[in-house]
């Protein structure tokens, strides 16, 4: 239904590699940072009980460098490892913007990505409410499709669709709840 969106089903309950890239990009929007700083900021805001590995940061950054979304702002050499400072490029800003604006494909267990997006939107002073609304619209569209399919289908179809519908409904309620608490969240993450 959304041709621009090509993701497949992601493993459950982990922050997706693609999302790490966008997340790190988003964190860079507030100013250039060292890789180490990035890891710390990420862990603090999104990592919770699963901190990022350094390796993951560096491999992601090198992919972003390759794609022209970030550039190296400078290198500090001294004791210890070499420390590159990364800055976001205009293309990088556009990419973050696009990512945030595109609703996730309504799937069960989306909270982590959605949560990351909301926090990033708040951090980068983008319209988090708009983000939630468009996600909500996407969810409801999905639910409509499932409802429609259910109408025509047999009992097995109905049960499968119902399973998905109940999960989507739970998501939607989370979206509503988050929308109602956006201001409080903004105070906490900024």
């Amino acid at each position: 239904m959304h041709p621009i969106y090509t993701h497949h089903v992601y493993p459950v309950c982990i922050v997706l590699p693609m999302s790490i890239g966008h997340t790190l990009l988003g964190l860079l929007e507030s100013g250039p940072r060292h890789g180490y700083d990035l890891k710390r900021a990420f862990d603090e805001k999104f990592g919770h009980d699963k901190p990022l590995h350094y390796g993951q940061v560096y491999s992601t950054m090198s992919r972003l460098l390759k794609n022209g979304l970030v550039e190296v702002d400078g290198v500090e050499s001294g004791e210890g490892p070499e420390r590159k400072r990364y800055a976001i490029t205009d293309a990088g800003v556009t990419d973050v913007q696009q990512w945030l604006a595109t609703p996730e494909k309504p799937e069960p267990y989306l909270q982590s990505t959605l949560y990351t997006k909301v926090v990033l939107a708040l951090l980068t002073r983008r319209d988090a409410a708009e983000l939630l609304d468009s996600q909500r619209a996407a969810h409801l569209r999905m639910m409509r499709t499932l409802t429609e399919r259910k109408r025509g289908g047999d009992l097995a179809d109905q049960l499968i669709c119902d399973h998905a519908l109940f999960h989507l409904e739970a998501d939607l309620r989370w979206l509503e709840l988050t929308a109602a608490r956006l201001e409080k969240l903004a105070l906490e993450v900024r």
Partner: protein
Amino acid sequence: MNRQVPPGEAPLLHAQELRKQYGATTALDGAEFSIRPGEVVAVMGPSGSGKSTLLHCLAGIVTPDSGSLTYDGRQMAAMSDRERSALRRTEFGFVFQFGQLVPELSCVENVALPLRLAGTGRRAAEREANGWLERLEVAELAGKRPGEISGGQGQRVAVARSLVTRPRVLFADEPTGALDSLNGERVMELLTEAARSARAAVVLVTHEARVAAYSDREIVVRDGRSRDMAHAA
């Protein structure tokens, strides 16, 4: 998938900048709404957001303090209470959450009620009513009183009653609010099917996403302001 409403068709009911105060509380603060013939629009939003007030304004039950509201090109504000009542009798249908069936009338009499209000003779009205009970799969309840039937059956009777006058707009305020999911779903299916086959527009106030999923489009009301979610994506 969804029935496509020709976008060019003129809206049947169209509201702009509706405002309504109840004492110090602002129920509507510039709400917008538009529905085309045959369209099912869900009105969602948290409790106290003003969605019921919006429905009451749209149905001409409550007069907004300001704003423009047209039905079929006619300004509702310019109508007298009598005209609005007549409109509700003949052009609109209503389903509420509960407490809407007259307890001492039998189901068929309840369904026939709007027709009788509009002046149809008793026999003809009840014949028509029986037809609608059949369409909503509750024909066997015709002679029973609301106290003797279950909530889901009662809602089906209420839906039959709301459609019996072949209204052009059906207003449903939490029609499944008091039902379990299975009954609620069945009521929604019958409601939307019946409304579609009668080409009635449906304004569906609900806070349940699974009920809203029966709509073509949804409007979210927050703090008295409306948002058409078709523009959110």
